[in-house]
Every structure is written in C-alpha cells, then in structure tokens.
C-alpha cells in the first residue's frame, strides 16, 4: 500500500510541477533584469512601483480620444464645483470672467507657473486636450478644462497640481501646448484662484488626514439600481455599470482652508453607444479637523485662462462627456443594501499590467473554464494616469451575479489576453458591506453609528418602511461590531479620542494667537 501511496505522491508531484512549469514558461524578463543589473544609460525603473514620483510626466504618450462606453473613477484632481450642470457652469463662468477676469498677461502667468512649479511640490499630469475636455470629471472632478477644443492636431494639456505631503490642493495651473512639451510649444495657460502661501503649506505639512469613507458610493449604487442577473439595471430597466473613486483635497477659498474628502460616483447606460456618463460627488469638509458640511465649495474656480496673444482662452461651452446628476441621497448616504459587491481592481494589481493599450480596464465574468476566451467584457473602465487614485477605484457588481459553473466561486477577471489577467474571487476580493465595516477602526464605527442614529432621528419620517428597516439593520450591524471591541480597546480608543480633541483644541488656540499676533504686526507695519 505504501508503494501505491508513493507512486500516487510522485504522480501528483509531477502533475503539480508540470502545471507550475507551464505557468513559468511564459515568464520572460531577462531583458529587464539585464537592464537593471547592467544599465547602459539611466533608465526609468518605475516598473518596480516603489518609486514615488510626484512628477508623473507622460509627455509623449499620445492617446486617441477613446469612445468610452462608460466611466469609472480614478481620481485626479480635486477642485470644487457646485451642483449646477456643466453647461450652465461654463456660461456662468465665462460671463463672470468677462467682467471680473484678472487681466493677467500671458507672459506673467507663464513666469509664475515656471517659478511656482520649480520651487513648490507639484503633481504633473499630461493628456491630450480632447481627452481632458471629454473626461474632465475623471481627471479634475471639480473643474472643467479651461481651454477651448482645438481643430489642430496634437494639442495637449499639462496640469500642475500643488501638493502637501502628496495630498492634492486646489492650487492648479493648466498649460495647453502642441506636440512635445516645452516653453516654446505652449499656446495657452490658466491658473486657479487658490494660492497657498509657503507658511500655509508648512502648517499643513504632517497634518493628519482622515480616511475617506468608502460607504457613500456603495450605498448610493445599492439604492439607485436593482440587481438583475449579472448586472445592475436602472429604474427604466436599462443595464448600467457603476464605479467610484475617492480622494482628499486640501481646499482654499478666500482665506479659509478646509480638507475635503470626496467620493465620485459614475455610471453609464451600457445600451447607449457614445452616451454620456452620469456622475455625482459626495463631499465631507473638515475645517480645523471638524466636520463642517456647511462649507460652500465654489464651482470651477479658475482665476484666468489666456492665450499667447493675451486673449481669453476659456471655452464657450462644455465638451464634457459627464452630466451631473443627483446620485447621493441627502437622507440616505449610509445604508448599503445586501444586493451589492465591490471590487477594487487596483488594490492588488499594478494598473500597467491589467490595463489595455488604450488605458482601459476590461473586466470579464468567467462562466466556464477559460478555454473559450476571449470573453465579452462584463465591464469596461477608463482610468486616469495618476496611480494613487487608481488604488481607490471600485467597480460594483450585483450579488445575483452567477458563479462559475465548474467552480464554487464567482470569478471576475481583469486584464488582457496578451498582458495577463488578474482574477478576483467572490469570497476574497469582493467587498460586501460587512467587509467594509469589519475593516473600520473603533472611532470610525462609532462615528458611522452616530450618523445613522442622527439620520433616523432627523429624517426617519421621510423613510419608507423598508428603508427604515434597512437603516436599523445597518445600525445594529455597526453596534454589534462596536461591542466586539474589548473593554480595554474601547477605553484606549476613547482616551485616544480625548487626547486628540485636546490636541485639536490647543492647536486652534495656538492658531488664533498666531493670527492675532500677525494682525497686530500688520497694523504696526501699516502705521
């Protein structure tokens, strides 16, 4: 018997070895190894993904404007905008600027851009002009492109976004140029109103940034759409695909500075070719680390946009493929129904490895073994270049999605036939509402529970019976998780919260004292 066991073991080992060798057979990376081990010239080794390069220059990459089937997040900039549709915003903006535009000469603006970006910390993004005009929400969710569409070929935009500890601010410069980027190829420039002083930047450095809530987008999708087979459908029965991304911006308006956590939700009607995308942005504003959602976020806050001949360069109308819609409910931003999963495709995969050549993410539902590839994509996502925001991208799927008929799991793949696939399994990679709650810290759980309680108290009469049941179910989930914390952890968390509040209060007092001292000093100088 032992001999039989030995033979079966050996056969099994041989089988495993053959399969593993089959996997490694396609690995061919010696060129890359040799290039790093024996470099001929300085090369870019950003493949290792270990280099944080805040100047992500993608000049030279020419992408055609993709015909986007539908959209998904990937943050890019943060800028604040109002809730008006983009077309109205654009004409309002132009009108404002005709009257109020700061008459900044083109050359002075270019000098300012050069000086600022050489001395400050900026993220740099390059993209074709047409792409920025169409996909503005994917690139700068709160700002539209400040330049007119051009009939000339090879027109591009470079954005400089000022950062603090790699967190974006709303101080932005935009430059339109032709071909390769150089000072002589620039044809227009724009700047935002926000202008952080060095002192403000210094004060903001090492600032604690609160985690962005990952609930709002998921809650909105679970509320807006109905699970139907492998897809979501809207109220008209049309198949839609939805995704979101989140980020943080340090925003300055006038003299006020606030930290905005935002969640941008997109969806697209799959049946409509070249149709528009609908989007909405949920924001939490923190002023001096205190939540203050009364903070008004100005819309499309460009200061000026000028051509090389000093003429106004603002577009006469918006060419965005995105239309603002109310997707986040005022009264129900936190309840997630049980009909939804979420995948974060870039949380475990390098975007370069799974994006198509035109920078899209294709996702495939495998209903059977892979021998019938290629599949029709279940979902398609366009993502921007900025990798830090790709990481926060989520794609939503309904819980009614089919399992693989040969395996026990739901399997979604993302990638391409030639670059390889990343595989997601339902029980590991699909985030349910409970998964999200289970990763939250004690303080965040308590905060969420308090919000829900407040929502029930204030808005409970507006809920339908089913909605009220869902909210209460969600609250009891949260309370159950909170009670799992040990007494020690709870005390420790409460002490920590208390210490934090004390520190915040001391900081506020210090800032007030500083302001007073500055004010007195200014008065002395004036005299």
């Amino acid at each position, binding site marked *: 018997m032992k001999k039989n066991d030995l033979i079966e073991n050996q056969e099994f080992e041989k089988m495993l*070895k053959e399969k593993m060798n089959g996997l490694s057979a396609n690995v061919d990376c*010696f060129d890359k190894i040799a290039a790093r081990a024996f470099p001929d010239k300085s090369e870019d080794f950003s493949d290792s993904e270990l280099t944080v390069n805040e100047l992500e220059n993608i000049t030279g990459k020419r992408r055609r404007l993709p015909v986007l089937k539908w959209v998904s997040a990937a943050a890019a900039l943060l800028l604040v905008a109002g809730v008006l549709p983009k077309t109205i915003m654009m004409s309002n903006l132009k009108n404002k600027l005709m009257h109020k535009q700061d008459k900044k000469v083109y050359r002075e603006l270019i000098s300012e851009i050069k000086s600022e970006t050489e001395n400050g910390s900026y993220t740099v993004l390059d993209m074709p002009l047409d792409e920025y005009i169409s996909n503005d929400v994917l690139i700068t969710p709160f700002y539209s492109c400040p330049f007119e569409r051009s009939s000339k070929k090879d027109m591009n935009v470079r954005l400089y976004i000022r950062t603090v500890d790699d967190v974006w601010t709303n101080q932005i410069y935009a430059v339109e140029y032709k071909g390769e980027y150089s000072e002589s190829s620039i044809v227009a420039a724009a700047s935002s109103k926000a202008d952080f002083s060095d002192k403000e930047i210094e004060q903001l450095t090492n600032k604690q940034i609160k985690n962005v809530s990952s609930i709002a987008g998921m809650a909105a999708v679970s509320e807006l759409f109905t699970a139907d087979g492998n897809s979501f459908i809207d109220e008209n029965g049309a198949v839609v695909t939805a995704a979101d991304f989140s980020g943080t911006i340090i925003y300055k308006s006038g003299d006020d500075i606030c930290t905005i956590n935002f969640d941008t939700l997109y969806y697209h009607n799959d049946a409509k070719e070249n149709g528009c995308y609908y989007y909405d942005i949920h924001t939490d504003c923190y002023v001096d680390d205190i939540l203050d959602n009364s903070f008004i976020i100005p819309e499309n806050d460009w200061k000026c946009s000028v051509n090389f001949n000093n003429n106004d360069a603002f577009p006469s109308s918006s060419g965005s493929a995105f239309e603002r819609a109310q997707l986040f409910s005022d009264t129900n931003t936190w309840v997630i129904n049980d009909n939804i999963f979420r995948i974060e495709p870039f949380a475990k995969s390098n975007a370069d490895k799974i994006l198509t050549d035109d920078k899209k993410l294709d996702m495939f539902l495998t209903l059977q073994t892979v021998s019938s590839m290629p599949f029709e994509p279940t979902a398609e996502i366009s993502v921007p270049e900025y990798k830090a925001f790709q990481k926060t991208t989520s794609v939503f799927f309904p819980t009614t999605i089919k399992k693989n008929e040969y395996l026990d799991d739901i399997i979604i793949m993302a990638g391409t036939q030639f670059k*390889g696939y990343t595989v997601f399994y339902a029980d590991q990679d699909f985030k349910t509402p409970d998964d999200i709650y289970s990763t939250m810290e004690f303080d965040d759980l308590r905060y969420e529970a308090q919000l829900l309680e407040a929502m029930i108290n204030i808005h409970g009469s507006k809920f339908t019976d089913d909605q009220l049941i869902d909210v209460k179910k969600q609250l009891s989930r949260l309370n159950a998780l909170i009670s799992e914390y040990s007494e020690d952890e709870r005390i420790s968390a409460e002490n920590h919260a208390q210490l934090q509040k004390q520190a915040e209060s001391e900081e506020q007092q210090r800032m007030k004292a500083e302001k007073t001292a500055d004010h007195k000093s200014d008065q002395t100088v004036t005299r």
Partner: protein
Amino acid sequence: MTADTNFSAGGDSIIFATFSQNSRASGTIGEVNQLIIECSTSKESLCRLYEMFKDNVFAIAFSITADYHLSEDCVTETFVRLSQVKKFSHTKGDGKGFILTIARNVALELRRRYKREITDDIIQSYGETEQTVEDSIYINQLLRYLNDKQRQIVVLKCCAELTFKEIAKIMKAPETTIKSRYKRAIAILQEKAGVTSEKE
C-alpha cells in the same frame, strides 16, 4: 531564452508556448557557485543562472504571492539582487539554496507591500495564455487549502525539487517538521484534487 510564446492575431485565443528544457540543466554545485560569483560582472553568467533557476524562483514566488504578475516581478528582483551580491563563498556556499532564499525573501517582501492584510488567502492574477490562466486557477484552487508554510514546502519539494534538508535550511525549520508538514499538505492536496489512495 528557451521559451517562445506565440499568439494568433485577430482575437482568436489560440496561444501556445513551446520551450526547450535542455538549457535548464541543474548544473553542478561548483558551477552554480562560480556563476553566482561571476554574475555581478558577467551578463552571460547571470543569463545562465536565470535559465537554470527561473522556473524554481517563479515557483517559490508563486507559492507565496499566488499572483502571476507579482511572481514575475519577484523573478526580476531576485536576479537583480543576485547580481549585486558581493560576497559568496565558492567552496562553502550552496548556490541553489542561496538563490531560492533570495527569491523567498523577495516574495515575502512584495507580498507585504501589495497585500493590505497578512492573511493566508490567495490573491490571484494570472497568465498570458489560456492554458496558463487555467493552470493558474487550478493551482491556486488547490493551494488555497494549504497554509502559507505548507504551500512553500510543497512548491519547493515538487517544483524546485529540493530535498527536505535543503528546504529546512531555506525555511529555517527542523527537517522533521518540514517532512511532516509536507506529508500533511500532500494528503490535503490529493484529497482536494480527487486523487484517492488505497489505505491499508
């Protein structure tokens, strides 16, 4: 390189890979050690080591990361680091074990960086061809039933063809422990793979 991957164009998914095994001979211990000493200055030596150990390095990386692309990165990183080794004893060193130890450490490092939580769950991303994707899913479906250490031991034994003694040295565990973990792991895998064994 000995592996050629060919794709048919136009969307058909007929993809095949052919490779020759001849150049992946194991080499003597002395030869491997000499190549390691030379590889910091000789591309040919590094290439030879790559051809000899790429599969083994990939296998150990895969057993830890369970991710094709991360494993590929691990292969790259392992041989780059190998080329930077300054001190290696020709007479005392165990070249194969040395390379696989580097591979293991790199894989653990990459997994730490790219996973949010350290769990025994397998993350997957796979392959360039139909067959490799299918193999990947199959292997991962099997290996997911093992814990982290069991996976590494099975792969080092089956794929890298190390002895228990060599595995014990890499994993810094007693040989008896390695043997018992391996036995247990194989029993689990055989059960899951549907291989039945007659018992006395």
